[in-house]
């Protein structure tokens, strides 16, 4: 029984190996955070999960069926993608961009109907960017663009969200708001696979964590049990310690700060 999983995936760009025999299993309704240094293959793994890249060996299973057996239209109804950077060359409005998510539900000739527009506006509002609907996408700030793209993923109405560093480019307030929305979505039954550079975010969200280093799964499991000083330090070559705050929330504190006499 597997809901959404990678079975011994190996992948290389021309001759540069990126992923080596990666196996990971995502349970329905769970939040899985991918941790790992830059260039370690997190984005590649997510693209393979979406079927945007074909692995040299191994396969992705989606609802007990190999991903290869799905058409891209079928996949788009089950899985939505928020990429790390999106370019929109022509002057589409934010609402136009979100509406594009509805294409897989429309027939060939049909345009957007009332329901499509309602869902798109609702998604924008849920991310707190309803007021940007008629703005030209290109003129938005990086963080606003990111929120519009996440709204697009919601408008796609797929129950699995794959997000490549969704908090990148967001200000502190929007980061926290997005984490809250992710928790909310998870409680509504969404399954979420995301990469992050913040171990603390993985801890805040709970769920599972998969640490990837040099193209291999380095550690995986429940985030509270898996994330510890040793893991973070060997993953990122850092020197931190993890302390519990008064409310029981663990935070990472870098050594250079601990050594400060007045800290």
């Amino acid at each position: 029984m597997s809901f959404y999983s990678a079975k011994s995936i190996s992948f290389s760009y021309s001759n540069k190996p990126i992923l080596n025999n990666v196996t990971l299993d995502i349970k329905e309704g769970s939040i899985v955070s991918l941790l790992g240094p830059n260039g370690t293959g997190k984005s590649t793994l997510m693209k393979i999960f979406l079927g945007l890249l074909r692995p040299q060996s191994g396969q992705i299973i989606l609802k007990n069926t190999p991903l290869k057996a799905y058409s891209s239209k079928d996949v788009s109804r089950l899985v939505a993608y928020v990429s790390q950077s999106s370019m929109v060359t022509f002057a589409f409005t934010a609402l136009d961009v979100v509406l594009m998510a509805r294409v897989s539900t429309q027939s060939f000739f049909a345009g957007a109907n009332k329901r499509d527009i309602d869902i798109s506006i609702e998604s924008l509002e849920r991310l707190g960017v309803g007021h940007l609907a008629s703005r030209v996408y290109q003129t938005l700030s990086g963080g606003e663009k990111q929120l519009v793209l996440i709204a697009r993923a919601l408008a796609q109405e797929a129950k699995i969200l794959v997000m490549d560093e969704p908090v990148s480019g967001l200000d502190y307030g929007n980061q926290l708001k997005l984490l809250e929305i992710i928790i909310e979505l998870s409680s509504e039954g969404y399954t979420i696979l995301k990469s992050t550079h913040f171990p603390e975010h993985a801890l805040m969200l709970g769920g599972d964590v998969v640490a990837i280093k040099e193209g291999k799964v380095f550690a995986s499991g429940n985030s509270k049990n898996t994330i510890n000083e040793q893991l973070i330090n060997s993953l990122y070559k850092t020197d931190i310690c993890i302390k519990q705050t008064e409310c029981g929330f663990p935070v990472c504190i870098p050594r250079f700060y601990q050594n400060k006499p007045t800290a």
Partner: protein
Amino acid sequence: MLISLSVGRYDISLGTLIGFLKWKILGIGVAPSDVDLLSNIIIDIRLPRIIAAILVGAALSTAGAAFQAMFVNPLVSPGILGVLAGASFGAALGIMLGDSWIVVQLCAFTFGFAAVIVALAAARIYGNTAGKIILLVLGGVISSALFSALLSVVKFVADPYNKLPAIVYWLMGSFGAIEKSTILTVSIPMLIGIIVLSVSGKFLNILSLGDEEAMALGIRVSFVRYGAILMATMMSALTVVVAGMIGWIGLIIPHVARFIVGPDNRILLPMCALLGGVFLLIVDTFCRTAMSIEIPIGIATSLIGIPIFVIALRGAKKGFS
């Protein structure tokens, strides 16, 4: 269009023209006294030419806008994959080989397609994965260069007193050699191309997000792109068959249209067809009336098009930035 029918080397007053059309189409009124002459000028000479100008303008503009959407680049024009270079070479080769128009037209069409196939094959050599668009553009550059060189070879070996001037005039573009039968044959595929591209506007919109995101939204990217390339190539090659090389329309009109209606290809493509048709009709009417000799339309579109393009770009923030 009425004005265009009326003006020319033999001026027909608007009143006479309308009277004639009424009699011809609706059967009202009396036949004008010089009915044969009028019929010859209006139905056999001017009308086919006007239809050709509208069709070519519409086809080049729509193809240009579709190429811009699928290559995610507002500076792309219909010649990007080498179709115009290939068709020019084909036409020149046809002129050199014989005197038959049919051969010239077939050669132009065939080599237009051949050039695009060369471009796609060249892109394929470099692989099939990341950066696909840039590889296609590169393939187009290679193919254009190849067929331009071949065109030079044809020009070089062509008989300089007879064939070479014919080739050069062809390449400047003209609607002078239009025949009714040609128009009928090419108008159907051109119209099909314009309609197919226009109804695919929704998918072309999504291609402009980039390949990976379009795929994640459930679009069969290769299918849409190759289908649009096929249509746009067919239309562009046919324009060379009808009227030789006409530059700039495929680049300017999409910009002007985008400036007016915005970037949504579902509206943009029909708008391009409309504007392109009207623009080329005006330019062609100007070409055949402004001076006692006919100005080659390829030259006129460039000379008139460049200032329009400069003005349009000044205010083009609505289209892209």
